[in-house]
């Protein structure tokens, strides 16, 4: 079906929800009531608060007699079936959990979809909102496009099906709580009859917590808190940043009202289609939905002469905007690290010196995630509003753009030092080590972030002017050492000196490169109480070294017998067989700090320091303070 065809006849949509001791959540999602012809809430007679919420919002109440039948913990399937018994059999039913908020225009969009009576429909994804403030902020900021959780099959938080269908009752024998019944129900539909609607929802509070009845803390303490609405300061913000001679780029258009507001306060608004309002939809259901969203936006912005149509967020659209021409760049989406990191270098040159980047979702305590993204990439906002909107003045946008613009990866032909971090825990030690290296080595350095990219490491590398690469973590089933060994393969250097994160560089590492003469890899003998025959704080190799290849192959082979110690076993085995080039001890030291030999180039951190107590060693503290001074400089 396409959006041009005749709209289907109106359908009756009933909602069914089980809510016991969930009145706080139910209160949050009660605005769903407008989507349904009737909403039946199944609860327990003892839950007076839920009954009160239902009364206020006009929901019907059914007191369950079977929820705890036979000593059940929380027999949700039985309670749902009690509800299904009393609903209209010739209509659709949307079974929704009592913590699911649907889009404000859910019904209009659902009515446009073709629904087949023998199918089970789920939602495309959900956004988990762990706090009330996150929930409230997002509830007022559709679309919910970021940080969604997808499921691999239609699960119970939202089920839409026709009650006249063959499968219209939940299986009761598979569990006596809120688990499993939905999976079994979903599986009872052939795959071709399990479908996803092209909408997403908000989930109030953590998911997967209260399987056997409510155990989590209240989402909010009392009704007043729950009804707290953020003051909408958008107009105030637009007025403060705008002016009759000012221009703005709005990155992300969904509701026309926001564009119209900007149009009132700015001379010209360049609108960018961040959410794909005009994107070709990959499926018929999405195409139908896109027609609704796009036509609504067109309707709500009709007659505005100082706005562009939604432009694709492409290099061509950006090229058409002269550099230094915008007073404000307004991001309407939730600040998200990857998107901001990618977009800012392209947009900043368009900003006038002293222009502003503006957005929403900034409140460091209540919304720590997006707030951190803003602070990491732009610094703390210069002005904030009570609805979490913010603006940051950028005095030199071009310079900031140049810093943030990713450099194309360069294959260095020569020698260089390589670090590898495997998560946020490594970052501090790694940067301190790098800081100490820079005192003795001005040659190329590359820092690898293996596995999940570490934003703080990338941004630190940008500040420090170091090549940063995000490389894969081969397997979650591998121990960290083995994954790191694989990560080293991504070194861009012909001759690489690897320095472990928790090390202090005390003198020039040149001697370690010199040791490669006549060899393709070099390790150094162990000292002190090191149980391994070699030190692992630093070692060097030439690209394509058979020694490192063999080490990697052996460590992988030993995985089945040595488990987490496979890397150590491979090292020991090769050292024993004499296939590992090991030079006398000296340049790399892992013994007591007070006995460091004078010839030591690389000193491994004592265990305490690795645990974060860097200040225990004066040299470390000095390096750390030097690094902090660099990191505190403005971007």
């Amino acid at each position: 079906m396409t959006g041009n065809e005749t709209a289907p006849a109106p359908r009756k949509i009933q909602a069914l929800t089980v809510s016991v001791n969930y009145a706080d959540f139910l209160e949050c999602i009660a605005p769903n009531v407008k989507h349904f012809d009737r909403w039946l809430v199944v609860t327990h007679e003892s839950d007076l608060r839920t009954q009160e919420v239902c009364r206020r919002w006009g929901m019907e109440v059914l007191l369950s007699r079977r929820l705890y039948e036979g000593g059940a913990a929380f027999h949700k399937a039985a309670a749902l079936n009690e509800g299904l018994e009393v609903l209209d059999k010739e209509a659709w039913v949307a079974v929704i959990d009592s913590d699911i908020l649907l889009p404000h225009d859910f019904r209009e969009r659902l009515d446009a979809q073709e629904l087949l009576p023998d199918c089970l429909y789920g939602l495309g994804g959900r956004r988990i909102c762990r706090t009330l403030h996150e929930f409230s902020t997002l509830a007022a900021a559709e679309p919910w496009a970021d940080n969604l959780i997808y499921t691999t099959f239609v699960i119970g938080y939202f089920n839409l099906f026709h009650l006249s269908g063959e499968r219209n009752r939940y299986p009761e024998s598979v569990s006596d709580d809120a688990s499993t019944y939905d999976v079994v129900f979903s599986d009872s539909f052939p795959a071709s009859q399990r479908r996803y609607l092209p909408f997403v929802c908000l989930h109030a509070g953590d998911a997967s917590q209260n399987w056997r009845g409510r155990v989590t803390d209240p989402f909010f303490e009392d009704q007043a808190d729950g009804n707290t609405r953020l003051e909408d300061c958008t107009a105030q913000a637009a007025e403060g940043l705008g002016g009759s001679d000012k221009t703005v780029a709005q990155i992300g258009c969904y509701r026309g009202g926001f564009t119209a507001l900007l149009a009132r306060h700015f001379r010209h608004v360049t609108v960018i289609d961040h959410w794909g309002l005009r994107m070709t939809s990959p499926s018929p259901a999405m195409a139908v939905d896109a027609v609704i969203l796009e036509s609504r936006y067109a309707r709500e912005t009709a007659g505005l002469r100082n706005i562009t149509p939604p432009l694709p967020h492409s290099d061509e659209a950006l090229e058409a905007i002269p550099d230094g021409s915008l007073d404000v760049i307004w991001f309407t989406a939730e600040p998200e690290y990857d998107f901001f990191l990618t977009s800012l270098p392209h947009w900043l040159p368009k900003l006038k010196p002293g222009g502003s980047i503006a957005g929403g979702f900034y409140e460091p305590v209540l919304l720590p995630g997006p707030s951190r993204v803003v602070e990491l990439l732009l610094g703390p906002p210069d002005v904030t509003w009570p609805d979490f909107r913010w603006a940051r003045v950028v005095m030199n946008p071009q310079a900031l753009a140049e810093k943030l613009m990713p450099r194309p990866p360069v294959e260095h032909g020569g020698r260089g030092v390589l670090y590898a971090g495997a998560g946020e825990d490594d970052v501090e030690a790694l940067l301190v080590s790098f800081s100490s290296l820079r005192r003795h080595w001005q040659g190329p350095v590359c820092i690898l972030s293996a596995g999940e990219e570490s934003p703080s490491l990338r941004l630190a590398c940008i500040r420090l002017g170091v090549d940063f690469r995000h490389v894969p973590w081969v397997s979650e089933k591998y121990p960290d050492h083995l994954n790191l060994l694989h990560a080293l393969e991504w070194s861009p250097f012909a001759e690489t000196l690897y320095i472990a994160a928790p090390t202090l560089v005390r003198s020039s590492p040149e001697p370690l490169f010199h040791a490669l003469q006549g060899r393709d890899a070099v390790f150094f003998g162990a000292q002190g109480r090191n149980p391994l025959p070699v030190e692992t704080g630093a070692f060097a190799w030439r690209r394509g070294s058979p020694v490192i290849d063999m080490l990697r192959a052996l460590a992988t082979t030993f995985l089945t017998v040595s488990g987490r110690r496979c890397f150590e076993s491979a090292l020991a085995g090769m050292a024993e067989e004499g296939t590992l080039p090991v030079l006398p001890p000296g340049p790399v030291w892992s013994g007591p700090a007070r006995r460091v030999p004078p010839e030591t180039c690389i000193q491994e951190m004592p265990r305490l320091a690795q645990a974060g107590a860097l200040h225990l060693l004066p040299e470390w503290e000095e390096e750390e303070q030097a690094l902090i001074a660099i990191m505190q400089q403005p971007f």
Partner: protein
Amino acid sequence: MVEVRYRGSFGDNLFQYCFGRLLAERWGHRLSALPLPRFPNTAESVPGRTYLSPLQSWSGLAVEERQLGMLLREREMTTPVRGRLVLYGWFQRWEYYRGHETALRRWLATAPPEEPAAPGDLAFCLRSRRPEAWYEGGMHSGQPPAWKVPAPSMESLCRLAQSTPHDRLILLTDSPLRASGELGDFKPVVKNLDSFASWNWLRTCRRMAITVCHPAEWWAAMLSDAEEIFALDPWPANTRSSCAGPYGCGWMGGRPLGRPELRVHEPRWKYDW
């Protein structure tokens, strides 16, 4: 813009890079991918149109395709995604790469091994670890089928070694003791090499036995000039899903629907041996 985010190991990364580059070049989009170590041509710039959003992420998993409402099939991928496409997945289907061998060979050109295979070498690849893609959470609510024995089986390899003329039997394996023990009568030369070295040597071999599920070995075989590739496809062939409809129900006779599908239909690939 097509953006490749690698995951898994060497062989998986070859799929990811090549899939991304094929799409980028087909669509005239810019490719953003870290060059693969040891493959200098993967450092080539692939310029083209750049989109900063909307974000679309493909994992190459059937389940995700269900949510997108499309299958990542060759014909569906002719229309460019007018957005920022992030590839973070496996993309292990022969249909994506078939017909592009010339380009693939150029991208993946690398220095030949110091000691390439001799004309009379017969290589057996024995792997005890299951491919990383098999562990993919979210592929299905259930568990993937167990790989109970190293594939191919020793019995079938013994038969093959007896029936296939060769001067030297080479075993590429991560279980050297077991493999050399059971095939001892054939006096095999055991090579326990890392993934790249193993791949680089294998692609010079004229006869080999591999499992199609091992990503690096599949690539070596596919790009090689081998005359005979004795391939084991551990997924049962020609079984039908018990679930109706184009997407099946997740698993079909032990084969994950949608991914991977690496059975190559060429005369040199022999499955019945």
